[in-house]
């Protein structure tokens, strides 16, 4: 059976397959980032900051009725778009589904260049953080 994360991932990949031009893909990503929900100033703390990013990224997780909810923001537009993609896939999901689903979208959306830690733009750090939160939640349960 397909879990919720897998289903969301497939939908995302289908959406992005509409674009064959890199510029359109980036423009869509940037638009997604611009539509991120407001991230409160009070949460932009050192503790919530993901280190190792050239741009600033703040990331918080919360567990609600067995599901993990994420909120995040960045001061860079493309990274905010990546955050929007991550939230769409992983926020409001069961930790087990997050752990069980390999992040195939990275390759499908041609975002590999964003994955290398040396690009230090946070996709890699954010994915690690999300999977870390999920593993922690599972352990606590």
């Amino acid at each position, binding site marked *: 059976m397909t879990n919720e994360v897998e289903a969301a991932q497939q939908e995302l990949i289908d959406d992005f397959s509409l674009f064959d031009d890199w*510029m359109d893909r*980036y423009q869509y990503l940037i638009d997604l980032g611009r539509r991120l929900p407001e991230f409160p100033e009070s949460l932009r703390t050192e503790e919530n900051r993901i280190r190792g990013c050239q741009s600033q990224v703040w990331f918080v997780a919360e567990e609600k009725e067995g599901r993990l909810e994420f909120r995040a923001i960045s001061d*860079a537009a493309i990274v905010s778009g990546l955050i929007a993609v991550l939230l769409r896939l992983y926020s409001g999901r069961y930790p087990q589904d997050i752990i069980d689903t390999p992040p195939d979208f990275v390759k499908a959306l041609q975002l590999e*260049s964003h994955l290398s830690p040396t690009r230090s733009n946070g996709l890699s750090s954010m994915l690690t953080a999300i999977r870390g939160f999920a593993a922690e939640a599972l352990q606590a349960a």
Partner: protein
Amino acid sequence: MSQPQPRTASSVADCRADFPILEQCISGAPLVYLDSAASAQQPAAVIDAVARYQREDHANVHRGVHTLSHRATEAYEGARDKLRDFINAASRREIVFTSGTTESINLVAQSYCRPRIGAGDKILITHLEHHANIVPWQILCEQTGAELLVAPIDDAGQVELDALLAMMTDDVFILAISHVSNALGTISPIADIIATAKERGIPVLVDGAQGVPHLAIDVRALDCDFYAFSGHKMFGPTGTGVLYGRESLLDAMPPYQGGGDMILEVSFEATVYNELPYKFEAGTPNISGCVGLGAAVDYLQSVGMQRIADYEHELHDYMVAELKAIDGIRLIGQATEKASVQSFLLDDIHSHDLGTILDHQGVAIRTGHHCAMPVMQHFGISGTARASLALYNNEDDVNRLTEAVLKAKQVFA
């Protein structure tokens, strides 16, 4: 014997063909490499010299009686002679091979300064410095109780000379200043600054990492005490560099690291250190890298440093004018005297976003704080996009840069 014909200034642009890496496409577009201030590309002459050395001549230096060891020693020491000539040092004893500018500066901080200073002494730098010319001094201050003084810069990105001169007081033990700012391209008037420092008895270290690739350097004319630079910024291999030091100072300094090659005699009772410059070259050095660095010097001298400086100056002015004409651009660093670098911001686009969109058009620039966070803090920004030129760039590259920036403007509109 006829001298090799020096190339004319207009043909410096032909140098592009000497750099094999530039003949490739990135994201389907011919590569435009505008990140030479981070690391410059190597001409085929350097790549081939290193390969030939590895294939034919490699052995350890200064040790063996066999033929390869002789050849390796000759190649390594030959490179030292080339470097001496390149910066017009008085003696080959003043050319210490290091892993780069960073190690050169740390060597001076730890070996020249540390045994001689203490609480109450001051180390003077400027607000323009790269982290490599800040952090070694901070470490030294922590170790010795000395104090770090920072001369201010103005909004064009130039050291405020009056303030700097006023800060050169009796208690300043050393002045460490960059020749050319890596983040902004500002050329500081180091000859005048050194002259004043000399009058006041203050030794001067020049961070020349960004000076050497663009300007003809004469350490004797400058009269500096130390000049530190890196091989990979001047078209040589990474992991190579030089510390030029005035012989009388180097002579009086204790070794920086202990090990093989830096000794004459070792016993458990007493060890006698080797002579200059070997006293500072502990362990097997980066022989092949230094051979490549020597080849880079040959290459630069075949083009001519003055020609390179003139060519780049013209191209720099063209780049600045073209960038300036773009609506929404903010140039960071507008010093009167600049070399080959322009930092900028576009609208409210994050520099990292800008760099990503440019990369998709085959244009390589640097984004971020450029290891000069205090400079960014001065301008109240977290980073910039930085385009830096080298002798292999041309007007086409600049045009591609401006086209790519205009396209980025569309993407983020």
